């Protein structure tokens, strides 16, 4: 019993230490270059929490990060590195907007689920390609998903220019397809926070139930821990590879649909793959694959993302420095092995001392 709670405590301590170390390292960097880290962090935190608008924007960002984070996490649980979250998000975005633009007059209760469904479906298909190739031909899912990222990017731009719009931006989707709700917008002083936030909470709960209380979820975890043993135990590795990638893509596609229907309300040609897909990887790692952990780490990332914009203009830290500080925090988040090692050392030392004392 004691042991279980001990490791649970560790699981909470590791991410918290990572975050603190990241902030400390960022502060040292800023000091080194002659900027005041306290004003910088104050600008960042007060900028976000001092105004309902920017808090709303941070939560909106967190909404999408929750989906990309969960999407990455489930593939990672099964032992795959799905770096194509960004492309799957884009696939979901374009298909949701496409459906929403095609049937603008359907009632909201039909159109919203239909558009979201399209996003989920195409996100799933996009990731499913990589899963299928991996299962039947043993191709590396890392390479395939990276390639599919670019395919998604350029296909999306082509679809916008040649099918959905004349220029670089599609029309706005109709009210009936929008995820924005008046009271949420009013509550956050006009931010783009939308129903997606609540969908995210529901999905977090569903994800937790799926992974801990359902056979399919157990199989995915088992295949990730030891594919040979789970094959021996009668589980189909092929089926689980594809299933985990499909769910991963579906979650990313859902994020894309909500990004399109909630954040922007339209689709425009992309300069590069959306950063939010890659940041989802960091979110999943910080959350240690735990859905609730992912939810809170995506909120942290949302705050960092929106708050970083205040560092240049309110604390005189240049934009580049702000990016470096954020990257440092992400680095320490990812390097949590180091922190785990230190924590273990400290606790064993204590144990030895305690024994000696008695």
């Amino acid at each position, binding site marked *: 019993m004691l042991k279980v709670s001990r490791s649970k405590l560790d699981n909470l301590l590791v991410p918290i230490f990572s975050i603190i170390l990241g902030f400390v390292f960022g502060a040292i960097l800023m000091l080194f270059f002659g900027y005041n880290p306290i004003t910088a962090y104050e600008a960042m935190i007060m900028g976000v929490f001092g105004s309902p608008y920017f808090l709303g924007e941070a939560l909106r960002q967190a909404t999408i990060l929750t989906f990309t984070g969960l999407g990455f996490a489930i593939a990672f649980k099964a032992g795959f590195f799905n770096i194509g979250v960004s492309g799957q998000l884009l696939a979901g975005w374009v298909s949701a907007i496409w459906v929403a633009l095609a049937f603008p007059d359907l009632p909201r209760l039909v159109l919203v689920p239909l558009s979201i469904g399209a996003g989920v479906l195409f996100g799933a298909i996009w990731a499913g390609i990589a899963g299928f190739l991996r299962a039947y031909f043993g191709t590396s899912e890392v390479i395939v998903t990276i390639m599919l990222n670019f395919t998604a990017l350029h296909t999306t731009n082509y679809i916008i220019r040649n099918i959905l719009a004349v220029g670089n931006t599609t029309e706005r989707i109709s009210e009936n397809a929008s995820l924005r709700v008046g009271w949420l917008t009013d509550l956050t002083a006009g931010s783009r926070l939308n129903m997606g936030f609540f969908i995210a909470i529901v999905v977090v709960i569903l994800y937790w139930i799926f992974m801990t209380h359902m056979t399919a979820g157990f199989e995915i975890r088992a295949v990730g821990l030891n594919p040979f043993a789970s094959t021996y135990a009668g589980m189909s590795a092929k089926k689980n590879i594809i299933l985990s990638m499909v769910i991963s893509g579906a979650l990313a596609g859902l994020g894309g649909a909500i990004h399109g229907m909630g954040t922007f309300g339209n689709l425009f040609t992309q*300069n*590069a793959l959306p950063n939010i897909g890659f940041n989802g990887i960091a979110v999943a790692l910080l959350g240690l694959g735990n859905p609730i952990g992912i939810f809170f780490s995506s909120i942290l990332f949302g705050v960092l993302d929106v708050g970083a*914009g205040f560092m240049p203009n309110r604390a005189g830290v240049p934009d580049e420095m702000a990016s470096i500080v954020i990257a440092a925090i992400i680095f320490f988040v*990812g390097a949590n092995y180091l922190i785990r090692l230190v924590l273990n050392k400290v606790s064993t030392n204590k144990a030895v001392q305690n024994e000696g004392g008695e």
Partner: protein
Amino acid sequence: MTTIKLRSLLALGASAFLLAACQGEDAGGGDTPVEDPATGDTSTDTGDTGDTDTDEDTTDEGDDTEAVDFSIAMITDEGGVDDRSFNQSAWEGMQEWAVDNGYSGERGDGINYYQSNDSADFVPNLNAALADGHDIIYGIGFLLLDSVNDVAAQNPDQWFGIVDEISELDNVVSLTFRDHEAAFLAGVAAAHTTETGQVGFIGGIAGPVIDRFETGFTAGVAHVDESIEVDVQYAESFSDAGIGQQIAAGMFTNGADIVYHAAGAVGNGVFTEARNRLESDPDSQLWVIGVDRDQEEEGNWDGGNFTLTSTLKGVGKSIILSADQTMEEGFPGGKNIAYGLEEDGVGLTRGNMSEEAWAAVEEARQSIIDGELEVPEFTYSN
């Protein structure tokens, strides 16, 4: 068991490197206008004023002219303020305006910029600028049109500007450029300079704005010599120098000796590629044509300079003019101010052109201004 854990944790660590690499795709560049933190702090108000139009209480630092009670800000597109091209020329214009009006020219002193790393940043950046209280907030680039329109509609008492696009709203001034006229002159220059009979055009993101450059350039080349081939390619980016370098490499390999880019920070890769080729083979003759601001300094290499010329786009100037006009006669809201060769809003530098090429350019410039020569604006008709 422990080894598996160890390995997966190591993988996590490794992925952190990967993520750090994925974070910023900044084109790289050392000469960012870094501000002095000490002076930056003194004059930026911390946003407590909300969106009232009160300005920074400027504490003049040794300037003898009194600073005006007027401040302007810009929101960059994804290229960033140090793209050595479009955004940078806007920022340089703002700095010039600031110095002319008694400010120090430092960021945060009467002028400010808000850098966008992603299209999702546009609206929050506009709102941050709004909270900081500026008289006019400019969106730099057509990518910001939707965002500017949204925020402007929510804040009818705040003045906005949009560059390269036309907004219908009464509190937005639209600043557009007849870029095809300048690009036409660049085409004339290229046609008179090329020795291989092949030139290249690299666009940023395909769309009406960059299409003007492409149309003007190809028309200018054809105006001189129909047989010269123009290789047109798009980078689908305004920020990725790597793609620019890759496309330029392909064009030079295929025999083009002049490449014109209209792609913001992507162009930095074009200059890099030309420099690499010239340094490995100093006898070859390659040229790059710059865009939006005089990019002559980007073309310096050991054997001279390979920037043939640059098309100029007076983004900075248009900002200065509209800010001045607002202070003197009121805000030109809802208007579209178009700048062409005639208004000196666009132009072409002398650069390293031969006498013959320059004479041809001058002649074409005059015929365009006189209306004898009509430059097509778009390749498609809608």
